[in-house]
Protein backbone atom coordinates (compact mmCIF):
# COMPACT_ATOMS: atom_id res chain seq x y z
CA UNK A 1 0.00 0.00 0.00
CA UNK A 2 1.57 3.24 -1.09
CA UNK A 3 1.82 6.15 1.30
CA UNK A 4 -1.34 8.21 1.57
CA UNK A 5 -1.19 11.95 0.95
CA UNK A 6 -3.82 14.35 2.29
CA UNK A 7 -4.55 17.70 0.66
CA UNK A 8 -6.47 19.53 3.41
CA UNK A 9 -9.10 21.97 2.16
CA UNK A 10 -9.86 24.97 4.38
CA UNK A 11 -12.73 27.33 3.68
CA UNK A 12 -11.13 29.68 1.13
CA UNK A 13 -8.59 27.23 -0.32
CA UNK A 14 -8.59 27.55 -4.12
CA UNK A 15 -5.74 25.51 -5.59
CA UNK A 16 -6.69 22.07 -4.29
CA UNK A 17 -7.64 20.60 -7.68
CA UNK A 18 -4.42 21.26 -9.59
CA UNK A 19 -2.40 20.25 -6.54
CA UNK A 20 -4.27 16.96 -6.29
CA UNK A 21 -4.07 16.39 -10.04
CA UNK A 22 -0.31 16.86 -10.13
CA UNK A 23 0.29 14.68 -7.07
CA UNK A 24 -1.67 11.87 -8.72
CA UNK A 25 0.06 12.46 -12.04
CA UNK A 26 3.37 11.99 -10.25
CA UNK A 27 2.17 8.67 -8.84
CA UNK A 28 1.05 9.93 -5.44
CA UNK A 29 -1.90 8.35 -3.64
CA UNK A 30 -3.54 11.65 -2.76
CA UNK A 31 -6.99 12.84 -1.78
CA UNK A 32 -8.72 15.99 -0.62
CA UNK A 33 -9.80 16.22 3.02
CA UNK A 34 -12.44 18.78 3.82
CA UNK A 35 -12.53 20.93 6.94
CA UNK A 36 -15.76 19.27 7.99
CA UNK A 37 -13.87 15.94 8.15
CA UNK A 38 -10.76 17.14 9.95
CA UNK A 39 -10.44 14.01 12.09
CA UNK A 40 -9.77 11.92 8.97
CA UNK A 41 -6.42 13.67 8.75
CA UNK A 42 -4.97 11.39 11.44
CA UNK A 43 -4.86 8.55 8.93
CA UNK A 44 -2.43 9.99 6.37
CA UNK A 45 1.31 9.65 5.82
CA UNK A 46 2.00 13.06 4.28
CA UNK A 47 0.30 16.42 3.82
CA UNK A 48 0.26 19.00 1.05
CA UNK A 49 -1.23 22.39 1.95
CA UNK A 50 -2.36 24.09 -1.25
CA UNK A 51 -2.88 27.68 -2.26
CA UNK A 52 -5.81 30.00 -1.71
CA UNK A 53 -7.07 32.29 0.99
CA UNK A 54 -7.89 30.05 3.94
CA UNK A 55 -10.37 31.80 6.21
CA UNK A 56 -10.02 34.82 3.92
CA UNK A 57 -6.56 35.43 5.42
CA UNK A 58 -8.34 37.13 8.31
CA UNK A 59 -6.00 38.81 10.83
CA UNK A 60 -2.95 37.74 8.73
CA UNK A 61 -2.38 35.37 5.82
CA UNK A 62 -2.55 31.87 7.29
CA UNK A 63 -3.15 33.01 10.88
CA UNK A 64 -6.60 31.53 11.48
CA UNK A 65 -5.88 28.37 9.52
CA UNK A 66 -2.73 27.82 11.60
CA UNK A 67 -4.99 27.46 14.64
CA UNK A 68 -7.61 25.35 12.87
CA UNK A 69 -8.30 21.85 14.12
CA UNK A 70 -6.94 20.46 10.85
CA UNK A 71 -3.54 21.90 11.71
CA UNK A 72 -3.51 20.03 15.04
CA UNK A 73 -3.13 16.85 12.98
CA UNK A 74 -0.59 18.36 10.60
CA UNK A 75 1.54 19.70 13.47
CA UNK A 76 1.48 16.33 15.20
CA UNK A 77 2.41 14.61 11.93
CA UNK A 78 5.31 17.00 11.35
CA UNK A 79 6.62 16.35 14.85
CA UNK A 80 6.60 12.62 14.15
CA UNK A 81 8.71 13.15 11.04
CA UNK A 82 6.01 12.85 8.37
CA UNK A 83 6.41 15.02 5.27
CA UNK A 84 4.53 18.31 5.11
CA UNK A 85 4.67 20.50 2.00
CA UNK A 86 2.99 23.91 1.82
CA UNK A 87 2.52 26.03 -1.31
CA UNK A 88 1.61 29.73 -1.29
CA UNK A 89 -1.20 30.04 1.24
CA UNK A 90 -0.12 26.63 2.49
CA UNK A 91 3.35 28.07 3.07
CA UNK A 92 1.93 31.07 4.91
CA UNK A 93 0.00 28.68 7.15
CA UNK A 94 3.15 26.66 7.91
CA UNK A 95 4.99 29.83 8.91
CA UNK A 96 2.12 30.98 11.12
CA UNK A 97 2.01 27.50 12.67
CA UNK A 98 5.70 27.87 13.50
CA UNK A 99 6.62 24.68 11.60
CA UNK A 100 9.01 26.56 9.31
CA UNK A 101 11.61 27.78 9.75
CA UNK A 102 10.76 26.07 13.02
CA UNK A 103 13.16 28.14 15.08
CA UNK A 104 10.58 28.92 17.77
CA UNK A 105 7.80 27.13 19.62
CA UNK A 106 4.78 25.75 17.77
CA UNK A 107 2.30 28.48 16.73
CA UNK A 108 4.74 31.20 17.73
CA UNK A 109 5.96 32.37 14.29
CA UNK A 110 9.52 33.62 13.87
CA UNK A 111 9.10 34.73 10.27
CA UNK A 112 6.31 35.64 7.88
CA UNK A 113 5.50 35.66 4.21
CA UNK A 114 3.89 39.07 4.26
CA UNK A 115 2.80 42.02 2.13
CA UNK A 116 4.76 42.31 -1.13
CA UNK A 117 7.23 45.10 -1.60
CA UNK A 118 8.00 47.65 -2.71
CA UNK A 119 4.48 47.95 -4.23
CA UNK A 120 2.04 46.38 -1.75
CA UNK A 121 -0.03 44.62 -4.41
CA UNK A 122 -0.93 41.19 -5.65
CA UNK A 123 1.47 40.02 -8.32
CA UNK A 124 1.01 37.26 -10.87
CA UNK A 125 4.31 36.55 -12.61
CA UNK A 126 6.20 33.56 -13.97
CA UNK A 127 9.34 32.88 -11.93
CA UNK A 128 12.06 30.29 -11.38
CA UNK A 129 12.95 28.89 -7.98
CA UNK A 130 16.53 27.76 -7.51
CA UNK A 131 17.33 25.07 -4.98
CA UNK A 132 19.66 26.74 -2.47
CA UNK A 133 20.39 23.76 -0.18
CA UNK A 134 21.98 20.36 -0.65
CA UNK A 135 19.11 18.35 -2.17
CA UNK A 136 19.21 15.78 0.66
CA UNK A 137 19.01 18.51 3.30
CA UNK A 138 15.21 18.34 2.76
CA UNK A 139 13.51 14.99 2.17
CA UNK A 140 11.08 16.61 -0.26
CA UNK A 141 13.87 17.97 -2.51
CA UNK A 142 16.14 14.94 -2.19
CA UNK A 143 15.55 13.70 -5.73
CA UNK A 144 16.25 17.10 -7.35
CA UNK A 145 19.64 17.81 -8.89
CA UNK A 146 21.88 20.25 -7.06
CA UNK A 147 20.91 23.87 -7.81
CA UNK A 148 17.76 22.70 -9.60
CA UNK A 149 15.74 25.41 -11.34
CA UNK A 150 12.00 24.89 -10.93
CA UNK A 151 9.63 26.97 -13.06
CA UNK A 152 6.57 28.26 -11.23
CA UNK A 153 4.12 31.12 -10.98
CA UNK A 154 4.24 33.68 -8.21
CA UNK A 155 0.62 34.66 -7.55
CA UNK A 156 0.28 36.35 -4.20
CA UNK A 157 -0.09 39.68 -2.42
CA UNK A 158 1.85 38.48 0.62
CA UNK A 159 4.92 36.53 -0.34
CA UNK A 160 7.80 38.65 0.95
CA UNK A 161 9.85 36.91 3.60
CA UNK A 162 10.22 39.20 6.59
CA UNK A 163 11.74 38.55 10.00
CA UNK A 164 13.88 40.33 12.55
CA UNK A 165 17.62 40.49 11.76
CA UNK A 166 18.34 37.81 14.38
CA UNK A 167 15.78 35.46 12.88
CA UNK A 168 17.00 36.14 9.37
CA UNK A 169 20.52 35.16 10.36
CA UNK A 170 19.13 32.04 12.02
CA UNK A 171 17.40 31.21 8.71
CA UNK A 172 20.70 31.56 6.85
CA UNK A 173 22.85 29.93 9.52
CA UNK A 174 20.50 27.02 10.06
CA UNK A 175 20.27 26.20 6.37
CA UNK A 176 16.57 27.00 6.22
CA UNK A 177 16.74 28.94 2.95
CA UNK A 178 15.59 26.15 0.64
CA UNK A 179 14.70 28.05 -2.52
CA UNK A 180 15.64 31.46 -3.87
CA UNK A 181 14.29 33.28 -6.90
CA UNK A 182 16.40 33.18 -10.04
CA UNK A 183 16.03 34.12 -13.68
CA UNK A 184 15.39 31.53 -16.41
CA UNK A 185 19.14 31.03 -16.92
CA UNK A 186 19.73 30.50 -13.20
CA UNK A 187 21.22 33.91 -12.45
CA UNK A 188 20.32 35.16 -8.98
CA UNK A 189 19.68 38.88 -8.88
CA UNK A 190 17.16 41.41 -7.57
CA UNK A 191 15.26 41.52 -10.88
CA UNK A 192 14.31 37.87 -10.44
CA UNK A 193 12.59 38.52 -7.09
CA UNK A 194 8.94 39.41 -7.70
CA UNK A 195 8.01 40.60 -4.21
CA UNK A 196 10.95 42.12 -2.34
CA UNK A 197 11.45 38.92 -0.33
CA UNK A 198 14.31 39.02 2.20
CA UNK A 199 17.30 36.92 1.06
CA UNK A 200 15.47 36.52 -2.28
CA UNK A 201 13.67 33.73 -0.47
CA UNK A 202 11.10 31.66 -2.36
CA UNK A 203 10.97 28.76 0.10
CA UNK A 204 11.98 27.67 3.61
CA UNK A 205 12.64 24.30 5.20
CA UNK A 206 12.59 23.30 8.86
CA UNK A 207 15.62 21.99 10.76
CA UNK A 208 14.65 18.33 10.42
CA UNK A 209 14.08 18.68 6.67
CA UNK A 210 10.59 17.18 6.61
CA UNK A 211 8.58 20.40 6.28
CA UNK A 212 8.94 22.62 3.20
CA UNK A 213 7.12 25.91 2.54
CA UNK A 214 7.32 27.58 -0.89
CA UNK A 215 5.52 30.69 -2.14
CA UNK A 216 5.41 30.18 -5.94
CA UNK A 217 3.18 27.56 -7.57
CA UNK A 218 5.07 24.88 -9.51
CA UNK A 219 1.75 23.08 -10.01
CA UNK A 220 0.73 25.84 -12.40
CA UNK A 221 3.68 25.11 -14.69
CA UNK A 222 3.27 21.38 -14.43
CA UNK A 223 2.46 20.28 -17.96
CA UNK A 224 4.03 21.51 -21.17
CA UNK A 225 0.84 23.25 -22.22
CA UNK A 226 1.26 25.49 -19.16
CA UNK A 227 4.79 26.39 -20.15
CA UNK A 228 5.03 29.36 -22.53
CA UNK A 229 8.55 28.54 -23.73
CA UNK A 230 7.80 24.97 -24.69
CA UNK A 231 9.40 23.62 -27.85
CA UNK A 232 7.21 22.62 -30.76
CA UNK A 233 8.36 19.02 -30.36
CA UNK A 234 7.23 18.83 -26.71
CA UNK A 235 4.10 16.79 -26.02
CA UNK A 236 1.72 19.35 -24.54
CA UNK A 237 0.26 16.86 -22.06
CA UNK A 238 3.66 15.67 -20.80
CA UNK A 239 5.00 17.05 -17.51
CA UNK A 240 6.95 20.32 -17.54
CA UNK A 241 9.60 21.54 -15.09
CA UNK A 242 7.19 22.45 -12.31
CA UNK A 243 6.35 18.81 -11.77
CA UNK A 244 9.98 18.00 -10.77
CA UNK A 245 9.44 19.08 -7.18
CA UNK A 246 6.19 17.14 -6.85
CA UNK A 247 7.88 14.08 -8.30
CA UNK A 248 10.66 14.41 -5.78
CA UNK A 249 8.07 14.68 -2.99
CA UNK A 250 6.29 11.51 -4.14
CA UNK A 251 9.62 9.68 -4.51
CA UNK A 252 10.58 10.60 -0.96
CA UNK A 253 7.39 8.91 0.24
CA UNK A 254 8.08 5.79 -1.80
CA UNK A 255 11.59 5.43 -0.40
CA UNK A 256 10.56 6.23 3.19
Amino acid at each position, binding site marked *: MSARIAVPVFPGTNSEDETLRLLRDCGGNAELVHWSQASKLARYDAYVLSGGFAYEDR*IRAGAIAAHDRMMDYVIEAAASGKLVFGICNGAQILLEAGLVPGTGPIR*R*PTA*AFTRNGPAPHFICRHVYMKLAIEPVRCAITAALPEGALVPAWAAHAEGRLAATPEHLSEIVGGGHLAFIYASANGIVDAAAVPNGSALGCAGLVNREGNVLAIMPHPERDAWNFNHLDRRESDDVLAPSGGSLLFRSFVQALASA
Partner: protein
Amino acid sequence: MTRAVAIALKIPDNTAFTAAVALRRLGVGVERVERSEIYFFDDGGDVPALIERITADETIFNPNTHRLTVLDEAAPRPGEVWIEPLDPVTLSVSKGDGEKAATSWRLLGRNDASLDQEALRAAAERLLCNPAIERAVY
Protein backbone atom coordinates in the same frame (compact mmCIF):
# COMPACT_ATOMS: atom_id res chain seq x y z
CA MET B 1 1.00 67.43 14.72
CA THR B 2 0.32 63.72 14.40
CA ARG B 3 -3.30 62.70 14.67
CA ALA B 4 -4.56 59.16 14.95
CA VAL B 5 -7.75 58.23 13.17
CA ALA B 6 -9.59 54.97 13.77
CA ILE B 7 -11.67 53.52 10.95
CA ALA B 8 -14.00 50.66 11.81
CA LEU B 9 -16.63 48.76 9.87
CA LYS B 10 -20.30 49.68 10.28
CA ILE B 11 -21.37 46.43 8.65
CA PRO B 12 -20.70 43.13 10.48
CA ASP B 13 -16.95 42.65 10.89
CA ASN B 14 -16.25 39.04 9.95
CA THR B 15 -12.59 39.32 10.87
CA ALA B 16 -13.39 40.53 14.39
CA PHE B 17 -15.95 37.76 14.73
CA THR B 18 -13.43 35.13 13.60
CA ALA B 19 -10.79 36.55 15.95
CA ALA B 20 -13.18 36.23 18.90
CA VAL B 21 -13.94 32.60 18.05
CA ALA B 22 -10.25 31.75 17.60
CA LEU B 23 -9.21 33.54 20.81
CA ARG B 24 -11.79 31.64 22.85
CA ARG B 25 -10.37 28.38 21.43
CA LEU B 26 -6.96 29.59 22.58
CA GLY B 27 -8.24 30.14 26.10
CA VAL B 28 -8.71 33.91 26.10
CA GLY B 29 -11.99 34.71 27.85
CA VAL B 30 -13.33 37.13 25.27
CA GLU B 31 -16.99 37.60 24.41
CA ARG B 32 -16.67 40.15 21.65
CA VAL B 33 -13.93 41.80 19.63
CA GLU B 34 -13.97 45.25 18.06
CA ARG B 35 -11.45 45.98 15.36
CA SER B 36 -10.40 49.22 13.73
CA GLU B 37 -7.59 50.36 11.48
CA ILE B 38 -5.46 53.15 12.88
CA TYR B 39 -3.96 55.75 10.56
CA PHE B 40 -1.53 58.50 11.50
CA PHE B 41 -1.64 61.85 9.76
CA ASP B 42 1.15 64.33 10.25
CA ASP B 43 -0.85 67.40 9.33
CA GLY B 44 -3.80 66.64 11.58
CA GLY B 45 -3.97 69.88 13.58
CA ASP B 46 -7.21 70.99 11.99
CA VAL B 47 -9.62 68.16 12.79
CA PRO B 48 -12.54 69.17 10.52
CA ALA B 49 -10.13 69.65 7.61
CA LEU B 50 -8.62 66.23 8.29
CA ILE B 51 -12.03 64.57 8.34
CA GLU B 52 -12.95 66.33 5.12
CA ARG B 53 -9.74 65.16 3.51
CA ILE B 54 -10.28 61.53 4.50
CA THR B 55 -13.94 61.38 3.54
CA ALA B 56 -13.53 63.23 0.23
CA ASP B 57 -11.03 60.64 -0.94
CA GLU B 58 -12.18 57.07 -0.68
CA THR B 59 -8.82 55.40 -0.37
CA ILE B 60 -9.43 54.31 3.22
CA PHE B 61 -12.98 55.37 3.97
CA ASN B 62 -16.40 54.56 2.50
CA PRO B 63 -19.26 56.26 4.35
CA ASN B 64 -21.59 53.34 3.78
CA THR B 65 -19.38 50.76 5.35
CA HIS B 66 -17.04 52.69 7.68
CA ARG B 67 -17.19 54.71 10.85
CA LEU B 68 -14.44 57.25 11.48
CA THR B 69 -13.19 58.42 14.85
CA VAL B 70 -10.46 61.00 15.44
CA LEU B 71 -8.63 59.88 18.59
CA ASP B 72 -7.58 62.23 21.37
CA GLU B 73 -4.27 60.47 21.70
CA ALA B 74 -2.24 58.41 19.30
CA ALA B 75 -2.17 55.49 21.73
CA PRO B 76 -4.30 52.48 22.62
CA ARG B 77 -7.29 53.09 24.85
CA PRO B 78 -7.99 50.83 27.86
CA GLY B 79 -9.00 47.35 26.71
CA GLU B 80 -7.19 47.78 23.38
CA VAL B 81 -4.06 46.29 21.96
CA TRP B 82 -2.59 47.88 18.87
CA ILE B 83 -0.71 45.67 16.49
CA GLU B 84 1.78 47.82 14.63
CA PRO B 85 3.62 46.70 11.50
CA LEU B 86 7.39 46.98 11.81
CA ASP B 87 7.47 48.52 8.32
CA PRO B 88 4.29 50.55 7.87
CA VAL B 89 2.85 51.49 4.48
CA THR B 90 2.53 55.14 3.58
CA LEU B 91 -0.42 55.91 1.40
CA SER B 92 -1.66 58.95 -0.36
CA VAL B 93 -5.01 60.23 0.89
CA SER B 94 -6.30 63.23 -1.04
CA LYS B 95 -2.84 64.34 -2.05
CA GLY B 96 -1.47 64.13 1.47
CA ASP B 97 0.33 61.26 3.12
CA GLY B 98 -1.14 59.02 5.76
CA GLU B 99 0.40 56.06 7.43
CA LYS B 100 -1.39 52.83 8.11
CA ALA B 101 -0.01 52.62 11.61
CA ALA B 102 -1.77 49.78 13.39
CA THR B 103 -4.73 47.50 13.76
CA SER B 104 -6.56 48.11 17.01
CA TRP B 105 -8.20 45.16 18.74
CA ARG B 106 -10.54 45.86 21.61
CA LEU B 107 -11.36 42.78 23.65
CA LEU B 108 -14.59 42.71 25.59
CA GLY B 109 -15.71 40.22 28.20
CA ARG B 110 -19.04 39.77 29.88
CA ASN B 111 -21.32 42.81 29.91
CA ASP B 112 -18.91 44.42 27.48
CA ALA B 113 -16.31 44.90 30.21
CA SER B 114 -12.82 45.59 28.84
CA LEU B 115 -10.38 42.73 29.35
CA ASP B 116 -7.28 43.33 31.43
CA GLN B 117 -3.70 43.74 30.29
CA GLU B 118 -2.86 40.09 30.93
CA ALA B 119 -5.65 38.91 28.61
CA LEU B 120 -4.59 41.41 25.95
CA ARG B 121 -1.02 40.16 26.18
CA ALA B 122 -2.15 36.55 25.81
CA ALA B 123 -4.32 37.44 22.80
CA ALA B 124 -1.44 39.23 21.10
CA GLU B 125 1.10 36.48 21.76
CA ARG B 126 -1.13 33.60 20.77
CA LEU B 127 -2.84 35.08 17.71
CA LEU B 128 -3.02 38.77 17.00
CA CYS B 129 0.68 39.58 16.66
CA ASN B 130 3.36 37.92 14.55
CA PRO B 131 6.53 39.29 16.17
CA ALA B 132 8.52 38.75 12.99
CA ILE B 133 6.68 41.61 11.35
CA GLU B 134 4.64 43.31 14.06
CA ARG B 135 4.79 44.56 17.62
CA ALA B 136 2.01 44.78 20.17
CA VAL B 137 1.39 48.05 21.99
CA TYR B 138 -0.87 48.20 25.02
